[in-house]
């Protein structure tokens, strides 16, 4: 007993010595800590307003508590049901259609023999990822517009007679959203698979060739299994962000004509702030909290699965 007390005291002294030794480092971390507390943690605490009838004068501390009243109201507004449904539909479509494409394209890029050509193609296809969705929206509004290239070409080929209102029609909404998403993210997402492929040893391919496996078989039996862990990880991350559906894209590319399909949870929250569809900050906060909690849940489940797949946890 005595010894542990002595040890404890020694550990305590050691700790104090280290704190003194590292006093500069605490000062180094201080600006970061202040910013994080103000802009990351206080807003989390502020989410209590989802359970309050928030009024700006009384603030988070003084506003009256209303229990789950805001959630009741939230779940009863048609805006919420629509936003939740749209979020799930768009995320699922992106998962099914946009997720597999980079894998396929990576396999194809991997088959290019000349490294100069390979590098050039990679450099070019990454570019759309680096411009904002505002730029992307501007580009595609113009390309898909009335006198834009797409309508021009389709008309001159005789495929259509009248220009198609791609951006303003509900029927074209999902194709346009999925296509522009692919345009912006497909090339860039190949980075992760390409880097996994670069780790495959050439010996494996040589051995397969000895056995008479052609390139197609090599791709299926060597390349694909070697990147399977990356595929699983990327899939899990995608599932973890199911509640997001692409806020930037929806806000920049949608318009009144397509709001019925484009309004997702994040855009609905923002509109409680800007134009007041639900017209109540507390209800908006409740919607934000709802989204955050489900996202966190999805993340924990997927992180657990990632562990199971021997990928190492993400935290």
């Amino acid at each position, binding site marked *: 007993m005595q010894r542990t007390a002595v040890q404890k005291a020694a550990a305590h002294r050691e700790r104090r010595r280290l704190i003194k030794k590292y006093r500069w480092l605490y000062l180094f971390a201080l600006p970061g800590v202040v910013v994080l507390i103000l802009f990351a943690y206080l807003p989390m605490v502020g989410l209590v*307003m989802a359970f309050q009838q928030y009024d700006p004068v009384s603030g988070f501390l003084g506003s009256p508590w209303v229990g789950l009243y805001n959630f009741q109201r939230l779940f009863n507004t048609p805006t919420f049901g629509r936003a939740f449904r749209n979020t799930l539909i768009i995320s699922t479509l992106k998962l099914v259609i946009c997720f597999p494409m980079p894998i396929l394209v990576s396999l194809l890029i991997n088959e290019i023999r000349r490294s100069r050509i390979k590098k050039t193609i990679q450099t070019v296809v990454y570019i759309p990822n680096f411009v904002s969705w505002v730029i992307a929206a501007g580009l595609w509004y113009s390309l898909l517009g009335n006198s834009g290239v797409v309508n021009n070409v389709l008309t001159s080929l005789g495929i259509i007679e009248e220009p198609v209102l791609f951006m303003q029609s509900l029927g074209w909404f999902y194709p346009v959203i999925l296509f522009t998403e692919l345009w912006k993210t497909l090339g860039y997402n190949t980075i992760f698979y390409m880097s996994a492929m670069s780790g495959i040893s050439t010996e494996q391919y040589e051995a397969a060739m000895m056995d008479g496996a052609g390139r197609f078989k090599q791709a299926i039996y060597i390349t694909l299994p070697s990147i399977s862990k990356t595929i699983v990880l990327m899939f899990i991350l995608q599932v973890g962000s199911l509640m997001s559906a692409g806020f930037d894209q929806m806000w920049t590319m949608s318009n009144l004509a397509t709001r019925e399909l484009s309004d997702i949870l994040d855009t609905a929250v923002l509109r409680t702030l800007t134009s007041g569809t639900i017209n109540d900050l507390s209800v908006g906060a409740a919607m934000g909290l709802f989204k955050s909690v489900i996202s966190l849940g999805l993340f924990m489940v997927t992180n657990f699965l990632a562990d199971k797949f021997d990928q190492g946890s993400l935290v």
Partner: protein
Amino acid sequence: MDKMKRSAGERAFDIINLVLLCLFAFVCLYPFIYILALSFNDGVDAMKGGIYFFPRKFTIDNYQTIFKDKRLINSLGVTVFRTVAGTVLGVICNTLYAYAISKTDLPYRKVLNWLIVIPMYFGSSLIPYYIICQHLNLINNIWVYIIPWAVTPFHIMLLRIAIKELPPSLEESAELDGASYPMIFTRIILPLIVPAIATVALLSGLFHWNDWFDGTVMTNKSTLWPLQTLLLNIIQGADMSSFMKTGHTLRKVSITTESVKMAMLVFTVLPIFMIYPFAQKYFIRGMMVGSVKE
């Protein structure tokens, strides 16, 4: 591989594959070529359509129009300011933080670690965030673009990995010589993690240049709009009145809202294209480190 004779089927596959991928690369690049051509073309003429790669009726009127517009110049100032100030402040705060948590025996290191991990997984509390910025007097204030973004957990992790890769003996000998931590940090650590700092600075600069959200949400003064927010408003609201006024005084009837928009798009995207060739390897390395490790 090359010594072996390839079968006809294989060669056919190679060609088709290359054609497909070149087509894909073309689709990625073409929208930029298109707006470039339109931005140098007479606006009225462009409405007839049929411009694909090169301007048909060359003019620089569109660019003259946007550069005479006070709003654009003002927004450019806002964007440049937030990009420079935001990047500098971000790099300073993140590097200092990363250095602090790189010490494994630092008491309370775990607390500092969790402090950056939790926000990565629990975000999206926009409305309380807005209210807090209101209390801090940051609404309609240019610093709302800069201060809240001074810390980026992902950048801290990236920098910490770079610091941890340095041989510990470097610091130990300096410590024995009695060097203080500010000295060790500036003289020994910083020069050795320049590539990681470049990565973080470029990612941060890109973020600030591209961000339209804060300008749209955190201010209602159009004088504080960054370029991206101005552009978004023009794309969505077709609010081109001030541009057209300038055009009128010039007695130019050749510009249209559409052609001026194209010039603005080109102007906004140009800096990214200019740094991309140099920055590409940093961007990609940054992404890779972030996704593979940690």
